[in-house]
């Protein structure tokens, strides 16, 4: 498991709808803000890159010291952004694909409004379990 990892889902309207710190490192007060800041900065690069390729998985598009940003863009232009310090590309790809499946299930819930915050605890548990498995 990665020591530091931060996972954020950003809706197509650039609003974060899900956040999770999934690293095993001890929580630091300022870490969460720093991670948000790095991911926010990476959004511009995603926007440019997303239209140049047909791939959904954009590997290591940005870095900050030893932290790397990998992104998965869904067909509906929702972005799954992962900040990580591990170099396990296959694991990250599988992680994104499985989270994508979970996300589709969330979207199919008629009581969920697309673009609103994901509050489902079931989703949260599953994502954390996937992070432990693949990252």
């Amino acid at each position: 498991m990665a020591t530091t990892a931060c996972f954020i889902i950003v809706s197509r309207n650039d609003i974060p709808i899900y956040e999770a710190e999934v690293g095993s490192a001890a929580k630091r007060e300022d870490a969460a803000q720093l991670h948000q800041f790095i991911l926010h900065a990476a959004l511009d690069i995603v926007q440019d890159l997303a239209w140049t390729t047909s791939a959904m998985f954009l590997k290591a598009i940005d870095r900050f010291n030893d932290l790397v940003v990998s992104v998965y863009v869904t067909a509906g232009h929702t972005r799954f952004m992962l900040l990580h310090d591990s170099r396990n590309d296959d694991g990250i790809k599988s992680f994104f694909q499985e989270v994508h499946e979970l996300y589709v299930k969330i979207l199919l819930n008629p009581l969920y409004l697309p673009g609103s915050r994901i509050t489902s605890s079931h989703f949260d548990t599953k994502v954390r379990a996937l992070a432990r498995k693949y990252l």
Partner: protein
Amino acid sequence: MAPAAPRSGDAIFASVERVNAELFTLTYGAIVRQLLTDLEEVEEVNKQLDQMGYNIGIRLIDEFLAKSNVSRCVDFKETAEVIAKVGFKMFLGVTASVTNWDADGTCCSIVLEDNPLVDFVELPDTCQGLYYCNILSGVIRGALEMVSMKTEVTWIRDVLRGDDAYELQVKLLKQVPEEYPYKDDE
């Protein structure tokens, strides 16, 4: 002797027209979603779903009797069995079981293990009081009313609220004797 009523709806289910399950589930979901937006109050949505179910039920019973070839039920127990085994199979593709009879046979529970209406659904905090499948209780109430049984149908267990199955309590309030619109001597 009248032919025995079919004990399962498998044969009828095989011959009726069907729609794609996901289309069905999502259409029902869209209806509930729209009701929540329009009526705002969860309680009102429950009421509206029940009313919609009632309106479906009073029509559905005719189709059910026409296609299922069930004979007249001798008592309420048989009625409940037919609803669970034939009715649910015919229209929803699942079978239910009947349990928890009370002593005088007027109140029972229909337990659904599997419910095609709720695939994908998870109740958010804002809709905690919602009976998502309330349309089903309305359907049963409406259908039984058309065959002269006044009933009260309530949800006892709901998987969406954290229980392990769906349980509908059906309570027979009274049997309305059939009334003829004319007198014999007229």
